[in-house]
């Protein structure tokens, strides 16, 4: 685990009336406990990893309440868990990273939505759309519509979010329908406060077990039950949802203080952004009093037609603020208004961009355009336009001053990452064998596609590296390489990739990055993690799993041994043996390793015990500034600095203070026959007496042998 969450666990036990202060996703976790859930599951991924991490550390509290929690094998597994609520009145919640997670979970979700639930079933989705997102840009909305699941998108403050969690369970139970709650990435990470309630122990729990199993053919996804489900969705569940949303006022209307001729209908999650844009334009105050009427959709699916009609009646124009495409909400509202003969014109994607995140700047521009076009009474249009053009013009002024964009800084491998050397090896092998087709996968290793490596031609999904090679491999005149992380291997890569390759007799090469955790999502444990804890007490072994399904060619190579890795790869690429050849690149995630080692070493140092610290360095005067080492390694701690020489103009390579001494620099300079400027230093703190004596003798002799020349650098 990336860190310990003991402090967060404490805030989960706050009682009624106490103030919770912390992150959005942690507030959701607390809200689940306040809602009386019986079971929780999920698969990690930003921005909801935190929910799983914290619950993993909150075992004692969960046990006390009788709540079952598991870190599911995949999103599909998590979604299937909700099956508990089909026949029994138990509340359950699962979580994952949206779109990518929902795709994996979709089979179980469709079946769950068809059968319906009697206990509240809620999916907490981290909607990762826009700036900083690491996934494909799609909306969850489409999934909610096609499977008939209700979708909540609450205002992004902790009180609203916590309320939405509790309302989701109630809505789910009132309508026999699973509910999805989407939170944008910033809302998950928002730090705020809300007033707590007591945690609720569920009626059915690990402490109060279900006595009788139930059977009801009506809940089974086979005809004719499925036909009945489809009708229930429309005839019972939908109307029930509309009346629940209406009666419990899940959506909010804010009257405008200056004008009633226009209004804004917006997704709840965008409320704060819209309000800030209005503030900037002088149309709202710091506390949310808006001069334009606002209709906030905390439930974005289904829409309640009479609420929309009531809001739009008497207005000439309404603006729909809906992030992402297609514009489902805008089209639906247009349709509702026309069917009900409401004349208000609908603006949406006509003044706001069709695609992309609705950042502050986008909203500012869009709202200004809406006002300019509709010229509502009671709004100082001139002021708004002036402000808007002043603020949005800053970017252009800055661009002129900066004269070209500043260098980009995409994420990359951490200092000492064990996956980087593997890509160095692939790069070296490509020098000999020419360009290789590499089917890449999801994980930290996806960064291998970035400079300086640019390795990986396709990325199709988590654990799908090998599976995605099965079309291209038979069509290529040389073998292809696939990449998979150990997280992806257990998630689905073992079945969809390895077993499929054996079954269909593929002849290709698979590189498994075994770093011990799902590192990209915050180093959660997986079945093969060495540490015991929340998962299996006995770690599963990847190479044994491979051999058990008939992979004969398996080599395990230490990740940092670049030459050995290059040899193994060359061997795999050129051997006469048919079939799948697997290389396991074995090296623990450095982030996690450093976290493990640092406190141990600090303690030893304090006790006066011997500690060896390794670092790499570069001789400035030997380095000639070609930077081949950087192009082959890409370590963040391997960087450049101005050349101390008066003659040389190119910056020299240098190893900065962050070096953890993984040894890759040396390995690469050997494997690639680079320059002799690298040196390794083992600093022995608290050395033994013998070591100290020997060092003194050596220093004495070396001092006499050493050259006395020294090049003055001051010119």
């Amino acid at each position: 685990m990336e860190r310990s969450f003991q402090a967060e666990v404490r805030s989960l036990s706050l009682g009624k009336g106490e103030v919770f202060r912390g992150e959005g996703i942690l507030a959701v976790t607390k809200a689940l406990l306040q809602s009386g859930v019986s079971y929780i599951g999920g698969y990690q991924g930003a921005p909801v990893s935190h929910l799983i991490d914290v619950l993993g550390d909150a075992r004692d509290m969960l046990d006390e309440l009788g709540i079952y929690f598991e870190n599911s094998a995949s999103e599909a597994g998590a979604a299937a868990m909700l099956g508990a609520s089909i026949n029994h009145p138990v509340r359950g919640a699962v979580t994952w990273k949206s779109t990518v997670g929902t795709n994996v979970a979709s089979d179980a979700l469709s079946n769950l939505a068809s059968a319906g639930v009697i206990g509240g079933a809620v999916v907490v989705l981290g909607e990762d759309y826009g700036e900083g997102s690491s996934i494909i840009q799609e909306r969850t909305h489409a999934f909610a519509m096609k499977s008939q699941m209700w979708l909540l998108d609450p205002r992004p403050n902790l009180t609203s979010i916590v309320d939405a969690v509790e309302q989701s369970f109630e809505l789910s139970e009132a309508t026999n329908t699973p509910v999805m709650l989407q939170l944008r990435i910033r809302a998950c990470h928002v730090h705020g406060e809300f007033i707590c309630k007591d945690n609720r122990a569920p009626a059915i729990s690990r402490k109060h077990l279900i006595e009788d199993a139930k059977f009801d053919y009506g809940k089974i996804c086979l005809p004719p039950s499925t036909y009945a489900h489809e009708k229930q969705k429309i005839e019972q569940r939908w109307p029930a949802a509309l009346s629940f949303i209406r009666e419990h006022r899940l959506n909010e209307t804010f009257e405008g203080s200056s004008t009633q001729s226009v209004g804004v209908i917006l997704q709840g999650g965008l409320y704060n952004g819209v309000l800030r844009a209005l503030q900037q334009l002088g149309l709202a105050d710091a506390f949310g009093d808006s001069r334009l009427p606002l209709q906030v959709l905390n439930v974005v699916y289904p829409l309640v037609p009479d609420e929309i009609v009531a809001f739009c009646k008497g207005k000439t124009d309404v603006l729909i603020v809906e992030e992402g495409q297609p514009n489902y909400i805008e089209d639906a509202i247009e349709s509702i208004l026309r069917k009900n003969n409401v004349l208000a014109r609908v603006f949406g994607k006509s003044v706001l961009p069709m695609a992309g995140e609705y950042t502050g700047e986008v909203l500012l521009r869009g709202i200004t355009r809406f006002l300019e076009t509709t010229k509502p009474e009671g709004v100082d249009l001139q002021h708004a336009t002036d402000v808007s053009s002043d603020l949005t013009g800053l970017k252009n002024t800055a661009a002129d001053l900066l004269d070209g964009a500043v260098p980009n800084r995409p994420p990359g491998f951490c200092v000492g990452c064990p996956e980087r050397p593997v890509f160095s090896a692939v790069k070296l092998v490509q020098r000999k064998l020419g360009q290789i087709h590499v089917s890449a996968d999801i994980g930290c290793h996806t960064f291998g596609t970035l400079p300086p490596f640019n390795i990986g031609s396709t990325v199709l999904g988590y654990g799908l590296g090998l599976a995605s090679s099965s079309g291209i491999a038979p069509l290529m005149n040389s073998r292809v390489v696939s990449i998979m992380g150990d997280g992806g291997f257990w998630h689905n890569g073992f079945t969809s990739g390895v077993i499929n390759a054996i079954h269909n007799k593929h002849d290709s090469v698979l590189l498994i990055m075994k770093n011990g955790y799902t590192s990209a999502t915050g180093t959660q444990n997986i079945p093969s993690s060495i540490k015991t804890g929340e998962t299996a007490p006995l770690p599963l072994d990847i190479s044994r799993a491979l051999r058990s399904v008939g992979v004969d060619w398996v080599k395990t190579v230490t990740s940092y041994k670049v030459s050995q890795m290059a040899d193994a790869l060359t061997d795999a690429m050129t051997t006469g043996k048919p079939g799948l050849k697997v290389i396991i690149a074995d090296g623990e995630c450095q982030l996690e390793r450093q976290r493990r080692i640092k406190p141990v070493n600090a303690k030893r140092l304090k006790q006066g015990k011997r500690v060896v610290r390794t670092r790499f360095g570069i001789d400035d005067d030997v380095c000639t500034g070609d930077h081949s080492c950087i192009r082959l390694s890409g370590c963040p701690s391997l960087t450049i600095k101005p050349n101390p020489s008066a003659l040389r103009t190119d910056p020299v390579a240098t190893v900065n203070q962050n070096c953890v001494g993984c040894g890759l620099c040396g390995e690469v300079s050997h494997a690639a026959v680079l320059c002799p400027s690298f040196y390794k230093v083992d600093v022995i703190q608290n050395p033994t007496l013998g070591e100290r004596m020997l060092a003194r003798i050596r220093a004495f002799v070396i001092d006499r042998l050493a050259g006395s020349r020294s090049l003055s650098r001051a010119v």
Partner: protein
Amino acid sequence: MIKPITILVAALGGEGGGVLADWLIGAADAHDFPVQSTSIPGVAQRTGATTYYIEIYPVPRSELGGRKPVFSLTPNPGDIDVAVASELVEAARIVQGGFSHPRRTAMIGSTHREYAVSEKMAMADGRYQPQKALDALRAMARSCVLFDMREVAWRNGTVINTVMFGAMAGTGVLPVSRASCEAAIRASGKAVDASLKGFAAGYSMAKERQLSLADGPGAGILPAALHDVIRAGAELTTDYQDERYAQEYRTIVESLRHLELDAGGGPAECPVTREAARFLALWMSYEDVIRVADLKTRSTRLERIRKEVSAGSEDVIKLTEFLKPGLDEMLSVLPPKLAYWVARRKVLTHKSLNAGLYIRTDTVSGFMVLCALRSLRRLRRHTSRFRNEHDLIVRWLDAIRRLLATRNLSQAAYELALSGNLVKGYGQTHARGRKNLQAILADIDGQNLNLTDGLAARIKLAGRLAERIKLAREAALADPEGHELAQALGLPAPEPAFKPIKFVRNKRAA
């Protein structure tokens, strides 16, 4: 109407931006001010650029009568009161995003650079010009407090976020007191003393900067004047070989200078000579095993390394050198004829014979190996490598001279002088550089320089030639495989070092 105070923190993964945001929240809480923070961590924390955004409403909750301010989750254009960046380009990125307003924003940033991968991997100098960023910061912010915070952090044994926090407080733009900032640091409970020290240092630096306004960092390196270059060149060649070698260097440079002065028209600065002198000295001091051994056995080196890895006086250090001399390196110290004879034996050159050596230079035996290699210096003039390098140096200098001697071609000569930078490095890198320069020299040889046509035609040719050499040089540095160079010179694309592999077809496919 009181507006929230908006604070945008730009940092890199691992610099503690999140902790800084937590401190700000803690300080605001101490004043009972409503506060909110958001961030975009996720993958960005893995070394990428990341931002944290904090809003503080500077009125105690108790005075708000239960009303809650609506905070934004994203920074809006021109809506930032305090922008703080842990690095120069990150500060510029805030400006680039349109967040900084010249009438509103206080910009607090570190002037040091953490280079992006695109800057680091360039084959020569791919660094972003810091001056552009500094000018933009000053133009786009109400006030600027800029200094090297990384250095201050190192000096105080802390992480940069403490210095950033201190600088924000010291600038007086935060709505919270110094005492509440320090209390927030104490409450976080980790490395408290070091953090407080960093905070105090940042605080006083910011105060000082505000008074002096002299916040210029080490601006771009000025091009050294001719005599500085020659002096450094002579010093380097003496250090590399001996006084006589330096004398030879001076003679060559002197002859070039006369030629350039004779060519007239050029500024008194003699740019062609200056650049030729620069790269000539470096080339004459090419890095062979003797040189490497020499540099690695200097008495000053051990001290330097101890300092660099911050080893305490009581600590023992082990020092391992990574040397991988190949056949070429070994041959290069043989006399030319012998080297040629060996190189022709196919058996030896068939396979790369690079032997990875790990030499422990903290041991007497390891150190002595290098001392032995160092002692070959006196024989250097008789080695095959010396002959090879000087042959090409002569060709290069001749071409420069020829261009200088031809009317209107001094710009081309200048570009060719700069092309001396192509030959550098070791092993394959060096071989590649040589090949690239040879291609450029061959290209110049192929040009008809002695046009008898009119002046206009000659000037046109001159411009074209200079441009051609410049493009070729840049192309040579743009990609390691030499495709771009070939394209620039209109040559066929280089053969890839491609070995066909024996591919065993899928049985079913066959």
